[in-house]
């Protein structure tokens, strides 16, 4: 029998990889169509990405974009909500919508064998929605119930408080994407239809297909469904740069009965227009992107304070954020925040060559895994379009990462994290957490803001 190997075997060089290429055409009315042929992917995704900046919503009706998006499939000019769902699901299709600060994504996943009828139904929802009073009213009620669920969710509360305290109130992103009770309640089908009319049309859309296209005229099927789409919607307005609130401060959100404190710590970050976007991702990976990162090595593996935390740089079209998120035991909340802030600040002093090399290897080599499934290709390309970068931006990102030096990773990190202060959000049992924050002191945390 073989000798037992006591050291790790060598890893062979990875095969070269590039983001899948598209065949791009347009529909008869000029909507771009990008077809990603992915052999062996028998479930295809068809995703329609429509430029829809949330700043187009009237301030007093925020959430109208979300309600509009959710009611596209709730009845069309041709069939009722129940009949539409039955038709789509009979083809084995799943339908979903996603609203971000810059775009609406509507997509179906469907076995390629049922592509044509499912794409017809997708087009029917997007181009011929009915927006009946009853269906819109029902979704307003559902959204109000959903807000109750969100308010009971510690992670959601933390994200809401983070946005509300990181962005100036003049910035749309300081408030929830899907609106608040006072902006949702007044909505009726009239405003929903009006918002649709002004914002949804073929000139704002791009259509993506990812899946096994062998023997299927994908562009023809899409043109058949979307080729006569007309609309009065003009071009999307340009979203202004976000305004951030600087400075160290801690926001304590009382959530009585909590057995853990949900933390979200962060600040402004880059977006994809910044050539250091890739370098920032490398730095993030070192500091808090994985279980072996600097933060979790201490908070999880040494101290057992948490099931796990993660950091990330995230960004829509304009203006990004950096954040560290996770849940820690109530009794050690102060200690965990103190450790986290120390690690985040110390990382400004420099990331090592070895850390940076390992992070680069990991980020570059995981790329083929991230885009193995058809749906993940469509998701990535849809978000590239929403973010205003080329559809093959994944290749640019990987090139940026490959070229990043340890100094550049440190520099990208230092430009943002801790430069203009850090916002700390804690959602938990305020009476137990407050004294721990007081002990840490305002030198470390900045001023304390309490929210009920």
């Amino acid at each position, binding site marked *: 029998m073989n000798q037992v190997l006591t*050291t790790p075997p060598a890893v062979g060089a990875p095969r070269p990889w590039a983001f899948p290429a598209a065949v791009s055409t347009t529909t008869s009315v000029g909507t771009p169509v990008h077809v990603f042929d992915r052999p062996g992917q028998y479930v295809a995704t068809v995703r329609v990405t429509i430029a829809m900046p949330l700043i187009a919503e009237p301030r007093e009706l925020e959430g109208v974009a979300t309600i509009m998006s959710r009611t596209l499939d709730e009845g069309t000019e041709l069939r009722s909500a129940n009949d539409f769902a039955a038709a789509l699901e009979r083809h084995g299709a799943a339908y979903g919508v996603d609203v971000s600060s810059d775009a609406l994504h509507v997509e179906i996943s469907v076995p390629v064998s049922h592509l044509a009828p499912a794409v017809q139904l997708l087009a029917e929802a997007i181009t011929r929605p009915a927006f009946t009073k009853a269906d819109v009213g029902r979704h307003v009620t559902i959204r109000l119930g959903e807000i109750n669920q969100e308010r009971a969710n510690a992670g959601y509360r933390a994200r809401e408080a983070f946005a509300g305290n990181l962005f100036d109130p003049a910035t749309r992103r300081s408030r929830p994407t899907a609106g608040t009770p006072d902006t949702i309640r007044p909505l009726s089908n009239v405003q929903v239809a009006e918002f649709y009319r002004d914002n949804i049309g073929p000139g704002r859309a791009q259509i993506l297909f990812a899946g096994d296209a062998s023997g299927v005229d994908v562009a023809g099927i899409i043109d058949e469904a979307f080729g006569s789409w007309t609309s009065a919607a003009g071009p999307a307005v340009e979203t202004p740069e976000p305004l951030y609130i600087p400075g160290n401060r801690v926001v304590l959100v009382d959530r009585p009965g909590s057995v853990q404190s949900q933390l979200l710590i962060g600040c402004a970050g880059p977006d994809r227009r910044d050539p250091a976007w890739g370098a920032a991702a490398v730095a993030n990976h070192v500091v808090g992107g994985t279980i072996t990162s600097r933060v979790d090595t201490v908070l999880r593996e040494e101290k057992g304070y948490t099931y796990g935390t993660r950091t990330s740089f995230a960004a829509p079209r304009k203006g990004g954020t950096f954040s560290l998120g996770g849940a820690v*035991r109530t009794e050690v909340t102060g200690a965990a925040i103190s450790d986290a802030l120390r690690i985040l600040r110390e990382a400004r002093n420099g990331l090592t060559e070895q850390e940076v090399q390992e992070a680069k*290897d990991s980020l570059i080599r995981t790329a083929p895994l991230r885009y193995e499934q058809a749906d993940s290709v469509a998701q990535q390309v849809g978000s590239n379009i929403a973010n205003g970068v080329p559809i093959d931006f994944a290749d640019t990102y990987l090139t940026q990462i490959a070229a990043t030096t340890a100094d550049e990773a440190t520099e990208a990190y230092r430009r943002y994290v801790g430069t203009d202060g850090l916002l700390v959000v804690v959602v938990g049992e305020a009476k137990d957490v407050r004294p721990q924050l007081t002990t840490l002191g305002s030198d470390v945390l900045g001023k304390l803001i309490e929210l009920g």
Partner: protein
Amino acid sequence: MPLTYPIAEQTLDNGLRVVVSSDRAVPIVAVNLWYDVGSRHEPAGLTGFAHLFEHLMFQGSRNVASGQHFSLLETAGASLNASTFFDRTNYFESLPSGGLDLALWLEADRMGYLLDAVNQENLDNQRDVVKEEKRQSYDNRPYGDSYERLVKLAFPEGHPYAHMTIGSMADLDAASVEDVHAFFRAYYGPNNAVLTIVGDVSEEDAFDAAKRYFGHLPAIPQPPEAPDGTIGPLTEVLRDDVVSDVPSDLITMMFRLPVDGTPELDAAGLALDILAAGQSGRLNRRLVRDEQIAQSVSGGALPLIGGVSFGTLTGIASDGIDLQKVEDALVEEIEKLAEGGITEDELATVQAQAERDWLEQLATCAGRADEISHHALLFGDPNRINTRIDQVRAITVEQVQAAAAKWIRAGGRVQVSYRRTETGEEQA
């Protein structure tokens, strides 16, 4: 029409079952190990042990330092994790194919020599991490304890499915290093596992690599069988009514279902889908769309191998609607389904949805490897991944009707309900 994913298998001399599915279209390979140990195997006093190992297995082994398992694989470009379930535990990674040897070496080192690295210090640390996991996943979220409450009602005390995988914190606290070592010795060995390799490697190279890294590991004594959980449908209604600070009133009903791997379970699963799946399911149409007494409904079957499975139906009441109305409507729809009237169209719809789900599950090397391990370990036949859709498609309206009439009945259910406290309503 069966699918055509290639399947090759060999059993090593030490009993390790190795299954390979070559796919050269992608530059990656997935490694997936299913160990035949889940929470159903845990004797009284040792609940949560299978899951505890899901943590300890990343703390190092004879030739691997603590944290090195993650760092070596991440640097090689891997995505990796592990999961614990009632019936099994699994460990898996996907990575560029040049890292296959590394992945197999790491898996073999912890299969053979984990205990060299399991000591009081990392037991204490990972016990703390598991407690935080329980707080995060169960205790700090509304309705987080619903399944714990339901399985306790649905199965008699001591039944293999009467406790959740996270286990009892008291049992974990009482665990000594010796207890933990003994549990590992009993269940973790080549003859109690399936190793699946899927992706960019030839069958020959994959089997050679499996032999190279696992071939020297000794077999373990035949592990103790899990207790037989065979039990028929529920015959009464048991309730657990909770009043707490939840955002909305919610009810979940649970039914016992037939054991996995049978047409009866497939039929029962499709019956629950007719009620609860998608936007066109009966419950969504009636409770959410037409009567608007519920904000949402959901449900489905959870297939299990130990003599019985279970399934659930959940409804969240609309604001201002008495939860009793939701319960009454669920009961009516359950009985209506049991009494007849399932249409061919309804069945074809849930079968089409099941087909898409299955194809999506197999769309990645990792997903395919997981299902191959699953079908090899629990049913002894990895080829079932290619015939699974045909099995589901072969189920008839009559079979669905019969399964619903026997297993999914208003008079044979357990349920947990959550209602808001007065103060909770004031706060909202």
